């Protein structure tokens, strides 16, 4: 009986501790950001694995050798790589993000180390067609942005 009473007193004390914690949180600063006006610090996004992107080499061109390893490794069939005539480099590099399961099989299978996950959190489209990303165009846009030209709006 006495032990049950004492347990209840301890229980009420723990309830008060919980209430003091939420009281503290009530007046502590917010931890979220208002998305359209603020964005998350890009340093935090380094751990985010978004849609694929091509890794540029020293000159800013793609490292891809069109070996089709990623296309074969992909469980979702979301990649389409077409080799250009008379060269190793790809002509088209279409990536359907609406199918991708972000399993990283393509990243691991790539012998040239040409692809990686990007940190794009804010990818929003109105149709599924827009989720078919042209990664070569994306690479070109990034290259021109780095070189200080007028950045092209990537789709």
């Amino acid at each position, binding site marked *: 009986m006495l032990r049950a009473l004492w347990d209840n007193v301890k229980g009420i004390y723990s309830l008060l501790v*919980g209430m003091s914690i939420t*009281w503290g*949180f*009530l007046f502590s*600063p*917010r*931890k*979220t950001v208002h998305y359209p006006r603020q964005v998350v610090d890009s340093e935090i996004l380094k751990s985010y694995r978004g849609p694929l992107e091509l890794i540029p080499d020293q000159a800013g061109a793609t490292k891809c050798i069109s070996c089709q390893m990623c296309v074969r490794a992909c469980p979702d069939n979301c990649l389409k790589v077409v080799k250009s005539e008379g060269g190793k480099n790809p002509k088209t590099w279409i990536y359907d993000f609406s199918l991708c399961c972000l399993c990283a099989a393509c990243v691991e299978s790539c012998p040239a180390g040409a692809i990686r996950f990007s940190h794009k959190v804010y990818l929003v489209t109105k149709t599924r067609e827009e989720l078919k990303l042209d990664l070569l165009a994306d690479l070109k846009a990034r290259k021109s942005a780095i070189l200080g030209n007028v950045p092209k709006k990537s789709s």
Partner: protein
Amino acid sequence: MDLSLLSFVQIIVAVLLIIGLMVGNAVVMVYVERKVAGFIQRRPGPYEVGPIGTVQPICDSMKLLGKQLFVPANIDWILFFLAPVLAFFPVLLLFLPIPFGPYLTGLGVGDGILLILAFAGFGVLSNILAGWSSNNKYGLLGAARAVSQSVAYEIPMIMALLAVVFMSGSLNLSEIVAQQGSWPWQWNIVVQPLAFFIYLVSLVGETNRAPFDLPEAESELTAGFHTEYSGMGFALFFLSEYANMLLVSFVCATFFLGGYKGPFLDGFWWTFAKAYAVMFFIVWIRWTFPRVRFDQLLNINWKWLLPLSIINLWLTAIIMKIIS
């Protein structure tokens, strides 16, 4: 009480003002609840509609008004539409005897607390009818829980209020306020701390709020007794839930916190400030504690609150007999 024309007009005006208070209270409390929930979880809460989201509850209620009234198959039509009405209208009556200010009472009922406790039972009745008539297993389970919970928590609640009634010797709410002083150490909470604690716990159980929101536990019963209600039926349940919260807060302020009496200047602002402090407390514990299990809920009531309230009542009776 003479039923002259003047008192009739007084009741009409009081009921209209109380409807205004209920609706205004629901709008304000939806906003406050979502804001407090957001702040406790370290996010901003409603933010986009109007300045810092103040127009959000009005937009939500407009959306609710425009919703299609969806009716499930094989329901009991009369009871299904009677239940929300039955949840809403008795609450109007419950606000009548509360002394908001020294002269601001809807209806000076002699035994005001009896009226409140008697008609508060209608809330449970509407829950049963809603759960049973909507032909839904979640609804029925929620109704069954609502009955066993409300019936259980009503008893220590009445016992706690009875302890104060023993001290003041009156069931009249105005009389109970009049016997308390203006300063906090002259309020009933000082002489009846245990009754205040019991009342505080059982009012959360009585209004079906978290952590005792078993009848409408979202994760177990989707929405409990009002699962099948949409549009205005749901809105009436919602409104009456917030009105019930306000009512128990007003009763708490009247019985334990000195009612309209307060430091410096007595008036209705003290009643409202105290009632909304209790409301804030209810919201605060909702976002602090997880939901209890049903057997725990009833154990708290039958094994702790009820014996404690009986002991408290007994002690109060003995002490009052000795000193008087």
